[in-house]
């Protein structure tokens, strides 16, 4: 087993069920003289400009004659906005305009992506605050100037007339008022199945907990940025600096600004980290577009770090009151949960989807015959919230796995054994969960959860690990281990398409509606295309994040990119391959069946001759080429992939944590991830996603928190207060990638990997801390900061 684990210093190895090479359906891969790029840890196509300092991030792009925008933001968490005085700012040299809500009347609030919603729409955020400000950082006015420093100086001279209103910072407290007649709970999420009351009536034991996850978020290292430009010559409005979902945002912006989607285009630049928060539509995106048209100059806005930490989407803050009904043998008969989701000041583009996903995925991979959940979706006077990597899963895994640990403790059953007794068995697959989430009926498509658990325990030599820790505890060390099981989700459909074209040099272009947030999207799509078509992946150029090149796109979120865009790429490449073989057969005067494409050349099988370059086949298919005959012009094809539902990868996380009883510091000594990804297109990149996710999870479990005081004043607005993990906080992460359960839903069997690393980190670390300090059930709240851990240690002493 240890051969399958990539520890520090090793190249990742995938635990593949058979020794057989990975063959992509519909092709003859692997090819004879060159390894099939599918499944190989090839280096990335993205890297060269990035290591040379030739990347182009939002702040790196400038247009001649551009203006700079600076926002004037609310300094208080809740107040009536009585007036804005911009006269002093307007008098400054270099200031071109100052806008308030009155200047943008007629521009609607930023809409839900999956809207409209009668319940949620009244709570959406306007691009500039109208009659109330609702969080510290709420945009009130926009200053436009010829220089960013002048804009910032001028913004400081805009004065706001504000009248204080009561501030709400606790989502479990009594409801307040968003606006007259609108309570701070716009909606309630209810899901469930089975007979809860009967389960609790017959339970041998019930366990009840209150658990909370702290407010933290993606915090990409690049702040947001947006450059609006209106090209009057072509009547096209352009937004540069788009990310994540450029096509969906183009459509929303077109509606907001009353333009045809053909007359507004979004351009993704390099994106310095996404993690769910970057690439949503924020007020500034709309303002630079509007200003570019009205002021007839390009308008650039670059967020500073202070703004990023109080205006970009935050996430995760939930309080759960959960109880379980358990049979005498440890089988969990039912789970009943009530939770409060702190949405912050406005409903943003995701609506209630994070809360909905929490409710949908909370049961995880356990059988659980009965389940009921009630989610209170609450507004407060804090920065608005939305998705952060593994939204609803980091939170719900913490709750579910804490509950299972508490049940094990109560029943006197080993926590691993308890999980074994409750995990869904492979023969129960596909397993209908009995509930829907984000409009998808949850059906776990494939998996062998007990097998992955066993492989993880074997890889760690679990009995020995336990014995080692026991021995260290006997020596006085506070060290312990914790484990969490989870089911991920990926490949949110329903459809994605790409267009592949081979040019006369044999170079291949894949135009996708996908997006890159730094995860290696170009490389993975190129590998899939190259594998299916029969070319070197380095000859494949992947175009993404450009709405002017392709009409539709799903972007990069919800673990979608590899599953959806990858599958569409495979389908399109099959069609290009068929066209190339058909043309080549005619050119070579032989049957299609006798031909193959290897390394960009059409060859006769079993023949060592040079064959025909794919570029020459493309030339023969040119519209003007006689050789083409009646064939459709161009060596090009579109391919679509449609899926009936999401695909569900799964994982096991194990943390070993040492606690310093004097300082209250918890240090993660070791972290292990076992994860079944279906099929790994590029194991090195899968491992990279997982290790990076673990680091972020450690941040959310121990360090990162957007704290607010009772007046709604944010207390973490610099990176000195909001603590991102450094190398010193991250142990050598060990990763075991398995391919025991390819997805039956897509042609490549792939599942998503982006959220595998972060999902169960909070849960595993909490359990490890309990174990380390010998206080089962002690950790009920994340992050476990030194102050909180000291309090837990005192509880025991007292």
């Amino acid at each position: 087993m240890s051969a399958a684990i990539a520890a520090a210093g090793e190249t990742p190895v995938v635990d593949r069920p058979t020794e057989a090479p990975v063959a992509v359906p519909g092709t003859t891969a692997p090819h004879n003289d060159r390894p099939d790029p599918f499944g190989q840890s090839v280096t990335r196509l993205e890297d060269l400009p990035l290591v040379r300092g030739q990347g182009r991030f939002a702040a790196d792009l400038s247009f001649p004659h551009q203006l700079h925008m600076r926002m004037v933001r609310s300094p208080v968490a809740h107040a009536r906005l009585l007036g804005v005085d911009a006269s002093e700012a307007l008098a400054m040299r270099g200031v071109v305009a100052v806008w308030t809500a009155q200047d943008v009347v007629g521009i609607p609030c930023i809409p839900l992506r999956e809207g409209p919603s009668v319940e949620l729409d009244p709570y959406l955020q306007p691009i500039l605050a109208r009659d109330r400000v609702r969080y510290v950082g709420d945009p009130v006015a926009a200053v436009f100037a010829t220089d960013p420093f002048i804009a910032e100086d001028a913004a400081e001279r805009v004065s706001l007339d504000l009248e204080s209103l009561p501030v709400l910072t606790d989502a479990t407290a009594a409801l307040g008022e968003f606006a007259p007649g609108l309570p701070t709970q716009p909606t309630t999420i209810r899901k469930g199945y089975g007979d809860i009351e009967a389960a609790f009536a017959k339970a041998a034991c019930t366990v009840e907990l209150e658990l909370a996850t702290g407010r933290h978020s993606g915090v990409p290292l690049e702040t947001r940025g947006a450059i609006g430009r209106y090209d009057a010559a072509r009547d096209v409005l352009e937004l540069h600096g788009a990310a994540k979902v450029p096509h969906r945002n183009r459509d929303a912006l077109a509606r907001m600004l009353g333009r045809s989607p053909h007359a507004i285009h979004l351009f993704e630049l390099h994106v310095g980290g996404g993690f769910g928060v970057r690439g949503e539509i924020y007020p500034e995106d709309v303002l630079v577009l509007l200003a570019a048209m009205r002021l007839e100059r390009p308008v650039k806005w670059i967020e500073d770090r202070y703004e990023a930490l109080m205006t970009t989407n935050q996430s995760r803050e939930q309080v759960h009151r959960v109880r379980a009904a358990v049979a005498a043998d440890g089988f969990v008969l039912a789970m009943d949960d009530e939770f409060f989701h702190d949405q912050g000041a406005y409903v943003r583009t995701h609506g209630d989807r994070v809360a909905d996903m929490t409710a949908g995925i909370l049961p995880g991979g356990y059988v659980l015959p009965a389940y009921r959940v009630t989610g209170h979706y609450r507004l407060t006077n804090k920065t608005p919230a939305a998705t952060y990597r593994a939204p609803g899963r980091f939170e719900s895994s913490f709750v579910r796995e804490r509950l299972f640990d508490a049940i094990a403790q109560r029943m006197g059953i080993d926590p691993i054994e308890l999980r074994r007794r409750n995990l869904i068995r492979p023969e129960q697959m596909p397993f209908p969960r009995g509930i829907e989430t984000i409009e998808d009926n949850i059906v776990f498509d494939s998996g062998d959860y007990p097998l992955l658990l066993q492989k993880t325990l074997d890889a760690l030599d679990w009995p020995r690990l336990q014995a080692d820790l026991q021995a260290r505890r006997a020596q006085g060390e506070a060290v312990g281990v914790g484990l969490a099981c989870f089911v991920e989700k990926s490949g949110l459909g329903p459809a994605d398409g790409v267009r592949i074209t081979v040019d006369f040099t044999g170079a291949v272009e894949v135009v996708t509606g996908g997006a890159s947030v730094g995860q290696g999207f170009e490389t993975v799509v190129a590998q899939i295309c190259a594998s299916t078509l029969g070319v070197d992946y380095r000859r494949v150029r992947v175009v993404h994040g450009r709405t002017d090149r392709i009409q539709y796109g799903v972007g990069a979120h919800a673990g979608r990119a590899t599953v959806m865009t990858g599958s569409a790429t495979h389908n399109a490449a099959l069609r290009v391959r068929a066209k190339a073989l058909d043309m080549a057969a005619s050119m070579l005067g032989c049957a299609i069946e006798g031909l193959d494409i290897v390394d960009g050349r059409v060859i006769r099988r079993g023949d060592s001759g040079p064959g025909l370059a794919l570029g020459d086949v493309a030339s023969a298919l040119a519209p003007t080429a006689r050789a083409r005959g009646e064939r459709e012009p161009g060596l090009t094809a579109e391919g679509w992939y449609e899926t009936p539902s999401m695909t569900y990868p799964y994982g096991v996380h194990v943390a070993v944590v040492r606690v310093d009883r004097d300082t209250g510091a918890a240090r993660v000594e070791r972290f292990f991830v076992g994860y079944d990804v279906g099929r790994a297109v590029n194991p090195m990149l899968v491992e990279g996603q997982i290790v990076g996710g673990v680091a972020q999870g450690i941040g959310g479990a121990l360090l990162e928190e957007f704290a607010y005081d009772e007046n709604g004043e944010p207390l973490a607005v610099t990176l000195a207060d909001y603590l991102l993990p450094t190398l010193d906080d991250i142990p050598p992460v060990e990763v075991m990638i398995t391919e025991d359960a390819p997805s039956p839903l897509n042609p490549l069997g792939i599942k998503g990997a982006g959220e595998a690393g972060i999902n169960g980190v909070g849960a595993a670390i909490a359990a490890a801390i309990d174990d380390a300090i010998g206080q089962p059930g002690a950790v009920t709240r994340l992050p476990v900061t030194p102050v909180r851990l000291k309090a837990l240690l005192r509880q025991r002493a007292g």
Partner: protein
Amino acid sequence: MKHPITLTINGHRHEVEVEPRRTLADVIREECRLTGTHVGCEHGVCGACTVIVDGDPVRACLVFAVQAEGAQIRTVEGLAQGSQLHPLQQAFMDHHALQCGFCTPGFLMLSTALLERPDPPSDAELQEALSSNLCRCTGYKNIVLAVRAASKAMHATSGAA
């Protein structure tokens, strides 16, 4: 009020006029148009703006441009010699030590300064030095592997020569 200054970056002289309040990071990016140096936090925490000033790694957001006059400044754009990548650049690619690439120039310059010291850094020295910059994507594992590999390659070469 702007001051005329001359900055020497990667061996090239840049004559620019800047306000005293402009940071070195701003001027490298905006006046000299070398945008490989990134600004992540503007107050010396993240290290994305790390450049080498007279041989030492420096956070360019914590230095005013006027303070850097007369100094030898090196940025990520100066690492490669034409198409020949610096061993650190190659190692970062080989070991998948970058994802989004935003922090990468800072890590490259920090590591360059570290590896140009006479003795190769020990693992503990490497751990301590690399803990001074932030990366949000990789979890650092591959950055450490890459710098260690480059260290080996560079010191093997210099030892042979």
